[in-house]
C-alpha cells in the first residue's frame, strides 16, 4: 500500500524536542556562575571552619554572605541536577529505571536546595538569638 504521507510529515515530531540548546547553554552558564561562587565558598569555608557556632551565625547574618551563600546553593543544586541527569541518561537504558532515577535526582536536588536555602535565610533573618 502506497502511503500518501510525505517524508517530511512522517518525520515531524520524531526529531529533537527543540530545547536541547537551552539545556546545553544552561549547563554552561551555571558552570560559569559557579567559578567565582565556588572560590568565594572555599574562602568562606575556611573562615567558618576556624570559628564556632556564634561565628557561623554572625557570618550568615551578613547580607553579602547570606546572598552569596543562597546563590551558591541555588546554582550548585541546579548544576548538579543537570550533571547527574546526563550521567543517568548515559548509563541507564530501561525506561522505568531511567525515569525513576531522573525524578529521584530532581527531587533530591530541589529538596536539599530548598532546605538549605530556607535554613540560611532563617539564620539570616533571626535577630539576637545566638
Amino acid at each position: 500500500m502506497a502511503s500518501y504521507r510525505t517524508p517530511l510529515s512522517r518525520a515531524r515530531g520524531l526529531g529533537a524536542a527543540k530545547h536541547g540548546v537551552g539545556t546545553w547553554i544552561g549547563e554552561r552558564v551555571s558552570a560559569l556562575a559557579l567559578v567565582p561562587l565556588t572560590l568565594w565558598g572555599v574562602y568562606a569555608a575556611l573562615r567558618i571552619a576556624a570559628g564556632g557556632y556564634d561565628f557561623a551565625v554572625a557570618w550568615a547574618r551578613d547580607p553579602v554572605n547570606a546572598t552569596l551563600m543562597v546563590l551558591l546553593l541555588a546554582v550548585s543544586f541546579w548544576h548538579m541536577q543537570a550533571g547527574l541527569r546526563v550521567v543517568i541518561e548515559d548509563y541507564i537504558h530501561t525506561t522505568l529505571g531511567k525515569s525513576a532515577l531522573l525524578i529521584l535526582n530532581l527531587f533530591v536536588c530541589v529538596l536539599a536546595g530548598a532546605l538549605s536555602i530556607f535554613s540560611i535565610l532563617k539564620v539570616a533573618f533571626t535577630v539576637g538569638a545566638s
Partner: protein
Amino acid sequence: MSEAGKTVRERPMSPHLSIWRWHLTMATSICHRVSGVALYVGALILAGWAVALAQGPAAYACYKGLLASPLGLVVMFGLTLSTFYHLANGIRHLVWDAGHGLDVKSANASGAFVFAFAVVASLAIWAIALMIGAV
C-alpha cells in the same frame, strides 16, 4: 571476489574499554564525571551543615564534630580535591566550548595542568586551614 561474496565477512568491532591504552585526556574526562558525582554528595553535606546551623548550637556542634572526625576529614579532603579538579577542568571544558585548545597537544598540556592545579591548590588550602586552626 566470488568467494568473499558468499561468506559473511568478520565485521570490525569497536575496541572494548579494557584494551584501550590509558591516556591523559581519557583520565581527565573520567575524573570530571567522578569528581562531579563526589561533589553531588558534597553539596548534600553542605545542605546538612546549613540545616544544622538553623537547628541551633547543639546540632551544629554535633555536625561539626562529625566533619572533624578522622573519616570526616578524609571526606573533606576528597571534596577539596574534587572541588578544585572539577573547577579547573570545568573551565577547560568552557574553553573547549568556545572552540579553543582542542588539538591533542593543547588538550594534553591543559589536562596535566588541571591535575597539578587540583593537587597543589588542595594542599595549599589545607596548609592554610592548619595554620589558621580550621582543622
